[in-house]
């Protein structure tokens, strides 16, 4: 009861926090969630920065986190950015790049990555390497509550950014170190209490249990939920990708399709009940999580309007589904592979048994992608993904007329390292631009229709996070995380900066009142 009272007392202050309505709008002056909106398309309607002026992008500020690489997508709410690395959260002025607060909590557990926070009213939520969920006061960075979501001693950790849906936090978990069971939680923003849990693995006797050899393999069969999913408010369905089965490579101890690992699942947001599933990698033995963002958009498919879901999956296949029913509309490879023997009647790839790992080695060829964000641009009707084997940006049409790759931008080969896997997310905008990073470490703006390069800069490292954009005080900002530095790019102001008295730049001034005096003396001091 106490927490409810606090909650109500705090309510008026939410006016300064995140307006829940922002979650239902395209991101413009606010980027309120990991993907910017529920669709996961990472397309911004902002167009101040566009194909005609992108060449003049200039640095607004840089924030040095002095920590491991930034993989999180910052939220931007009321002029404040919130972002993370494992064990750390920052609030930073979105206009100046100056730190407002920094929360730190060291913990044991896997610290491979942290994708960011979720916001509800004036509260922030993030997961930790020891699989706790923490709530912070967005004003101060002070901790409000903390709950354990899973047991770190079994290798569970949280790297994903939670998703706020209505008055629930949707929280997934990570872990590959031991044979564990995946799940997806709905928790209360009030106190972190569990509202529902969807288990990635069926129980004995349930549908899907026939895809496991025995109770023990099924109970420890993996299927983690380590990326932020998407949500359709009209259908009230969550769409989530699940990770690989456990044990990861040794498929012989778990014959069968191994539901619901490497799957895309549709879950009722109120009840946590599974509505439909599609399995990109039945019986995976190559660590091909299907956790990549399931992007939602509506379009005509074969002459009929459809609510669609598209995923460029880690196994090198692009899938197009009807997101109301889960019906498979299109499954097509976006790069070469040698492990599948066609598609089954559900449109799911059939793994070749002889391509399962063997002691003598098996020659495996694949194309893949990973957690880095894809994008769907409604202006071009194209789906973009960074993939490896080749660094490739590929597309598939929204209407399925053309299943081929229209353009692909191959990254040149560096000496000794061949094609290093990329980790760059993609952002498209109404400025007819696609922002990403290439394999060689350049930040790039590309023409989304042709892949032609419009802008590039080497910022000292690879793009490690996913680019995002927001509008603030009449400026459009583009954010790119490069290693541990967050760069903000803007167009030059139309009017030059107001002249600032040079004295204010003299660093050794003790008091501003004497600025003129010091100004006069400054040349002498420099002698």
């Amino acid at each position, binding site marked *: 009861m106490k927490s409810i009272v606090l909650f109500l007392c705090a309510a008026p202050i939410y006016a300064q926090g995140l307006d829940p309505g922002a979650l239902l709008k395209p991101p413009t002056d606010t980027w309120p969630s990991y993907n910017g909106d529920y669709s996961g398309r990472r397309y911004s309607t902002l167009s101040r920065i566009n194909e005609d002026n992108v060449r003049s992008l200039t640095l607004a500020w840089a924030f040095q986190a002095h920590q491991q690489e930034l993989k999180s997508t910052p939220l931007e709410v009321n002029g404040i950015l919130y972002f993370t690395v494992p064990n750390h959260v920052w609030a930073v002025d979105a206009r100046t790049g100056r730190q407002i607060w920094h929360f730190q909590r060291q913990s*044991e*557990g*896997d*610290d*491979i990555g942290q994708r960011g926070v979720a916001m509800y009213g004036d509260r922030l939520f993030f997961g930790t390497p020891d699989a706790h969920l923490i709530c912070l006061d967005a004003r101060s960075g002070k901790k409000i509550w903390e709950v354990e979501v899973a*047991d770190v*001693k*079994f*290798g569970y950790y949280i790297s994903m950014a939670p998703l706020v849906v209505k008055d629930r936090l949707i929280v997934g978990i990570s872990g*590959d*170190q*031991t*044979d564990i069971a995946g799940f997806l939680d709905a928790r209360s923003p009030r106190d972190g209490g569990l509202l529902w849990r969807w288990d990635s693995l069926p129980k004995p006797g349930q549908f899907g249990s026939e895809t496991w050899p025995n109770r023990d*393999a099924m109970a*420890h069969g993996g299927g983690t939920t380590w990326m932020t999913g998407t949500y359709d408010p009209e259908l009230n369905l969550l769409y989530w990708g699940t990770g690989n089965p*456990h*044990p*990861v*490579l*040794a498929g*012989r*101890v778990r014959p069968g399709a191994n539901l619901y690992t490497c799957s895309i699942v549709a879950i009722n947001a109120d009840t946590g009940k599974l509505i439909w599933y599609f399995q990109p990698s039945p019986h995976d033995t*190559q660590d091909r999580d299907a956790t990549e963002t399931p992007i939602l958009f509506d379009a005509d498919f074969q002459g009929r309007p459809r609510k669609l879901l598209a995923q460029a999956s880690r196994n090198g296949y692009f899938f197009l589904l009807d997101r109301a029913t889960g019906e498979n509309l299109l499954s097509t490879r976006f790069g*070469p592979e*040698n492990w599948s023997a066609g598609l089954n009647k559900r449109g799911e790839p059939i793994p070749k048994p*002889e391509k399962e*790992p*063997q*002691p*003598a*080695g*098996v*020659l*495996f*060829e*694949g194309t*893949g992608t990973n957690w880095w964000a894809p994008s769907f641009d409604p202006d071009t009707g194209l789906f973009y993904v960074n993939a*490896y*084997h080749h660094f490739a940006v590929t597309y598939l049409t929204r209407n399925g007329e053309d299943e081929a790759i229209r353009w692909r*931008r191959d*990254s*040149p*080969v*560096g*000496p*000794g*390292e*061949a*094609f*290093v*896997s990329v980790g760059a997310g993609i952002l498209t905008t109404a400025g007819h631009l696609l922002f990403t990073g*290439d394999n*060689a*470490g*350049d930040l*790039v703006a590309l023409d989304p229709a042709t892949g032609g*390069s419009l802008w*590039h800069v*080497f910022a000292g490292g690879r793009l490690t996070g996913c680019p995002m954009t927001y509008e603030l005080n009449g400026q459009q900002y583009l954010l790119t995380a490069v290693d541990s530095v967050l760069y903000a790019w803007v167009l030059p102001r139309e009017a030059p900066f107001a002249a600032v008295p040079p004295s204010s730049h003299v660093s050794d001034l003790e008091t501003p009142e004497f600025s003129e005096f010091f100004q006069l003396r400054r040349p002498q001091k420099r002698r």
Partner: protein
Amino acid sequence: MYLIEGILNHKQACALLFVSVCLWGSVMSARQATAAAKTRHGSWQQHPADAVERGRSQFLKKCAFCHGREANGGSAGPNLMRSAVVRHDENGNLIGSVIRDGRPDKGMPAIQLTSDQIMDVVAFLRYRLAESDLRSPKEPGPEYSGAKLLIGKVEDGKAFFYGAGGCSACHSPTSDLKGIARRYPAVELQAHLLYPQDQHLRATVLDSSGKQYAGVIRFLTNYDIAIDDDAGWYHSWPLDAIKLELKDPLAVHRQLLPKFTDSDMHNILAYLETLK
């Protein structure tokens, strides 16, 4: 990796992953894979090796009958790698009482062990946790048994070398490959034959003044190229200001990778292994 024990031991499982690393080709160098493994392994604090061995010995005598020789489950006892008691234990604070008092409700008798012996068993279980939790890509050491890799046919490998593989166009068993099997353990030879990573891309650059440079590529991006010339000096240019010719000593290997069948790979390795 305990689930696959009995079929494959732990090292073999790691080696399987290595194969995927070197063939993806391309995706990750072995060094990067190892670095990635470091960030992902479990953080089980280890006890001295002699304590682990004493603990193993006690475990085999008193516990393995039910829990299995590797503590991953046996005829009557559960897999201790999945035990919350074992995973949350700190210096015997949880395991100790279970050993001393047993779990009569679950059919486990009290086990007669001294406090020191219990600590040794704890050390062994910690060791097993670290071992069973390590499952990221890892390079197999040179000790990886060549016999496991040598399932191909020497004659077919030789035929591939001189025929379909086109290897003999560049290589010869009596010159560059002479004694190759002595120079590399089988597992490394397999990686080398598929994708020899020590070969560098070379470039010839003609600059706007008509001057020509040649050397090993330092970096090649979508916009710039840099080389070390044959005298060791560094040069770089924007790509749009020069004429560029690339020479990729690995081009044939790259083209071959998607054409290799598993049999080709095993056969060619079997043949190369005869070049002692």
